[in-house]
């Protein structure tokens, strides 16, 4: 129980690993472009969580938090651009299935 109550670094690491794993799984398995974007968001947030956790427990400074802020801003920007791309893919292919956009392969 104490392990549960005394929340430490490893908890955060486990959480971020789970988040990362879920994100990776989403990116690797889903074919919907929006879903893949969501997976990417999970991966980014897992990384941000790691930054904050390490900053708090190991370093003791706020550099990690600043990184997290940057990551969030970056993720927002990325999402905006990625959604715009998805939109134009949809307009062109009438689908947002990532496998349908493989015309460059041939």
């Amino acid at each position: 129980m104490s392990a549960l109550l005394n929340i430490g670094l490893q908890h955060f690491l486990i959480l971020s690993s789970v988040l990362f794993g879920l994100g990776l799984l989403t990116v690797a398995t889903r074919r919907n472009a929006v879903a893949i974007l969501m997976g990417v968001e999970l991966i980014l947030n897992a990384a941000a969580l790691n930054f904050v956790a390490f900053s708090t427990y190991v370093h003791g400074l706020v550099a990690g938090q600043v990184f997290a802020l940057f990551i969030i801003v970056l993720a927002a920007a990325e999402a905006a651009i990625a959604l715009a791309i998805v939109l134009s893919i949809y307009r062109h292919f009438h689908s947002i299935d990532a496998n349908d956009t493989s015309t460059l392969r041939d």
Partner: protein
Amino acid sequence: MNETFTAAVQQYKTINWLWLIPLFPFLGATLNGFFGKKLQDRYGKKVPHAIAIGMMTAAAIVAVAAFIELLKLPAHSRFLLDSVFPMIHIGKFHVDMAFAIDPLSGMMALIITLIGTGIHVYSTGYMSEEPSYWRFFCYLNLFVFSMLLLVLGDSFVIMFFGWEGVGLCSYLLIGFWYKEKKNATAGMKAFVVNRVGDWGFVTGLFFLFWGLGGSWSNIDKHYYPDLAEGGMPRYNVAVVDEPAGGEEAKPPAHEEALEHKGVHHESVEVGPTVVFRELRNQLSITAENGARPLADELLKKEVWGIPLVFLIGLCLFIGACGKSAQIPLYVWLPDAMAGPTPVSALIHAATMVTAGVYMIARLNFVFVMSPGAMTVVATVGALTALFAATIGLFQYDIKKVLAYSTVSQLGFMFVGVGVGAYWAGAFHLLTHACFKACLFLGSGSVIHGMHHLTHHREHAAHSGDDHGGEHDEHGAAHGDDEHKPRPQINDPRLAPDPTDPQDMRNMGGLGALMPKTKWTYLIACWAIAGFPWAAGFFSKDEILWKAFTNHSTLVPGWFIWALGLVAATCTSFYMFRSYYMTFEGRAPSAEHKEHVHESPPSITGVLIALAAACLIIGPLLGFPSAISHREPLLAQWLEPVTNLTGAYLTGARAFADNHALEFAFMALSIGVATLGWFGARALYKDIAATEARLASLRVQYANIHKLVFEKYRIDELYDATFVRAFTKGADAMAWIDANIVDGLVNLMGTLSMGAAWISGAIDKYLVDGAVNAVADLTLDAGRRIRHVQTGRINNYVLGVVVGVIILVVITSLV
């Protein structure tokens, strides 16, 4: 060097406008050559002849100015030099583009420009119906330019430029009506025969240059006392400013002479040179004891045991033979009559053919050193004079008669220069230029008149076929019997071709229709036959007298004289024969009266001017000293040019005062001229009456007549030997070319093709194979690997994950 040398160093005056004389005709030729056709098409025929005559007049004016300038100088300094620019300076060989006028070339320049201008004027009338009028005047001006270069050139090189230039123009003008093959062939013949002569000229020049030490070796050093370091050797000489006696040709006996006259010292360059003046200067160097170091050195030289001076003279004479139509190279001149008649007058009578005589007169100081060469010149001249005169006896083509007459008269000139009577040779050159130009232009006037008649007859004969309007065949339409099968005596082919405007048998009685032409022709006949007062009397007589009295040639003088005398008889006969056959002989027929008219003033005016010249220049310039007891004017004038020859010509003194003999000779000359005249008169004055007698004479002496009529078959001989030999040689060369040379070339081609095939195979299979194999491999690899790129993001992500896992595992293991 303690000896004192003297020399007759040529004093000269430098002027800078002499180059204008040849420039003007050159400009005229350029203008007419490049723009003549356009100008003629746009503005008519006036423009080309205005350009040509204008340029000729300008050149004549400058020439006269130069002559006046010459007259102002003291006799022995009469030499104007104009060095325009340095041309070639290689080692000892120095050539400048330089022009010089001395009494001899001054005389020539006047003949060329004045008679040339007259003939240009004449041509405006004679050639008026010619379509390519501009071309004619272009060539004519170009000829005058070349001839002036020949005459005015200060060195052999410039002279040779002119020498070749006149040959070219002669070729162009003989073949002026080139559409007829016969004319083109005649031009080619002239060119080729002249080439043989040019070979002689150049060889003689090389011998001379070499003989003066031009072998670029130091073996000759010993006879140059003042061999300067790195420069031309020099002699310091005393120069007598003005020898007192014009006649005294020997350098004055030293001591007293040097005291009495103005003397200055000069240094004379010696060694190889092509400049006439320098050549003459160095050959005139005389030591106190009378030795001439350079002349003696030249005399001593031998080539293959033959004296070099003789070889030089002989080679230069071959050159002169080619240009001046002497045996054996005379054959081109009669054929050259294929050209328009003004050309025959200007080039083939008055100027170009005298170039050889001029050259020998110019080099008198060289020729006089070799009695052998002089003998050759005089003997060949005398033989040619007689030989050509006999051929002239039986010719029917009026221009052929004049052509053989020209050859014969040139022979007389060579007799003159060959026996050392340089002024007499030059004088005959001058008088011949006048009377032969007059005769040719007179014959041209007759042909011009006759052309209308024969043209009419031709139309009548070919009334069916339509080739009228061609006026350019006159002067070219005469029958040339050289290359036809030999005519038999009394053969119908001997009968006149009624459409030949030059056949004298078609003429007769033209005197009444063309009075001006008749009288000028008659005056020129008097002049050439040598009747007193007319020009030929003085010049021919002087030559014959000098030939008789000369002691320089190796054959006796009387022999040359006798040949000349017989030739003179023949001359008189054939000239009056041509006169009677053309202008008298019979009453003009109605047909003649209808079609033949006197020529326009441009033609008759020139004829009258030349006839007047024939009457004036003889007594004016060459009045014999036997009567006047003074040197003839021309002899005085030319004395500075020939004054070096006196030291070598020792003969003639024996007869110098024998005036009685000279008068007897004059009487004899007049006698033979009269004999020829009366002979011609008896046979041809009234042809209707004498026809039967002429025919019987022809039969009686059939063999001789046939031989002479066919010109001794020299052309056939040359055809059979040289022409055939060269044609055979050319055929052999062509065979070698076609089989051996081409075979080698083809073999090389085949070999190259084989090598190329091998090289191509290597390229195709080895090099290309390697390249293609690399490409194929790459393609194949690509084809296999491209399956990795599925285009599915999921696969890529999987790849990334797997890769990361592998990396992690590896890092943790290591």
